[in-house]
């Protein structure tokens, strides 16, 4: 049985050496810019005309759209930016903690 940490280390060193070899190969064969055409999937995307390829921003836009209801909940119900809203959650949690401490902490006669 190999220790997962040692395994991770072996993997890390291998990946590092592999990455260095790859970097050398890329550096030697580099031709300045990529020649492939940017792929357009047909959906409305942010402007990436100044980038070499479709960016992580566009990929992330798709993820945000997929998770839109959850993201919207986080932004509009939890992280509203209004301190009164924050207090209501913080105090509610403090109240729960106090109730738990009283119920659990009291040694009933």
């Amino acid at each position, binding site marked *: 049985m190999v220790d997962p*940490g040692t395994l991770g280390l072996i993997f890390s060193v291998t990946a590092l050496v592999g990455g260095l070899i790859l970097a050398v190969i890329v550096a030697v064969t580099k031709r300045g810019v990529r020649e492939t055409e940017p792929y357009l999937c047909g959906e409305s995307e942010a402007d990436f005309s*100044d980038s070499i390829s479709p960016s992580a921003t566009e990929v992330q836009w798709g993820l945000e759209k997929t998770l839109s209801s959850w993201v919207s909940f986080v932004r509009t119900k939890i992280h509203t930016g209004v301190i009164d809203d924050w207090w209501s959650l913080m105090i509610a949690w403090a109240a729960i903690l106090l109730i738990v401490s009283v119920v659990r902490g009291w040694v009933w006669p």
Partner: protein
Amino acid sequence: MIVWYEQLLGATVPALMAAAFLIPIMTLATKCAKLYHYYASTIAAFAALSTVLTYKYVVDNGTLVYFFGGWFPPVGIIYEVDQFSALLGAVTGTVMLAVTVYSRWYLGDHEGVAWYYTMLLGLEAGMLGSLYTGDVFNLFVMLEVMSVSAYGLVAYHRRTKEAVEAALKYSLIGATATTIYFLALLFIYGSFGTLNMADIALRVSTSAGLPIGRFVPQNPGLISLGASIALALSLWVFMVKSAVFPTHFWLPDAHPAAPSPVSAALSGLFVNVGLYAIARFIHTIFGGYSGIDTTVQALSYSLLILGGVSAIIASTAMITQYDIKRLIAYSTVMHTGLIASAIALGTPEGMYAATYHITTHAVGKALLFLSAGALVKVMGSRYLSDLSGAQKYAPVASAGALMAAMSLIGLPPFGGFFSKLALYKAFVDAGQVWMVAVILVSSALALMAYMKLVHTMFFRLPKTEAPERVTAPANAAMIALIIGIIVLGVLYPLINQYFITSGASVLDRLGYISAAVRALTSYFGGGA
């Protein structure tokens, strides 16, 4: 030999505070910014050396105890430094040195340099004092010292509306928290008649009879109730300080509003104090008290769940951010959540993972904020879209941001990979497999968020010419932290043992108590 180390431990925090308060007096004589830069860097170097030497001493010789002013406990204040607090102290000292050196470039000749360093050294004194103290009331004082310094530092850019609003919100929440902690101290003193951590732990451990309360001397039920309420109130306060859901709201506003070196100190180090206090209270002080066993279990389980919720909510918020500093601030909430969950497990594996992850997160997050600060200053904007091609103008900062992000996501060979591996193992061993899913999902969301930054820096063409360049000392600070996160990963087999023993020291209640008793006996000439 022992006395020398004790004196060094005792001198560090007061020396930092004295050095901080000396700066306003120095402004009466000179306004030369360069002087304050060198002065603060020298003091920070002393603190770094002192904290590292303290850690080395504790590793070699065991828990170190120092009686302030020769006053012995429970009346006097003591510093009691075990491996856990010594390690966190060493991390704080060394990262603060990098932050201070970097500040020289970041602030330049800004008019408020003297006040900045007053508060920065005050912040470091407060953090180290909180980590080293063996007295729950002194912890309150030190929490106030570091918090008040932090409020001032967040409001440093006081001519911007964002900084003023963030500092106001932060100070309101922070001051409420410390006041509630004071209330918790009343319950502790009322129940046990002492404020010394080892003394409380001792009375808790021998609480079968419990004729120990000052105000409720003969009622074990009331003592356990008092201890239970004190623990609940303290947990809430420490969750605020460590920014764990649902008490984390101040952080994503406060940390981005502060100057970037301060953001690094707050996100990488400040939150650790809250996590440290949670572990110390739940495991070392109250962990052995049969009267509130069920309370400790209930609070620990709630902390485990909320840590997971914290990670998911914060990582979700990360993917919607277009402000680089706000993105990183949410990442802090995510990581403190994971660490809090590991602490809540109460197992040696959990504490080992928490200790390791606190360390890798501290170095990685400080590096990320310092790098982000350099990018923001060079490119003139905090928005990701304006950082296009930043690697051309700030190559070290861009490389630092990339490696810090990789470490925080949990990619090898950086320290973050191994500390997350330890987290996985701890959760699986404790039967909390769902937390592994939480780590994976939150890390995947964080990866998406960091991809925006990496892509913008490395794969977009620069939009404008950047007139400013990062100076050599600032680059040196970032390079030191880069080496730090690599060393924390690559040297995993060699350094692993230190995290295991540091984490285990929190669970060693008897060791903590006996160290104080031994020191007391030795102080009165009874031998060690």
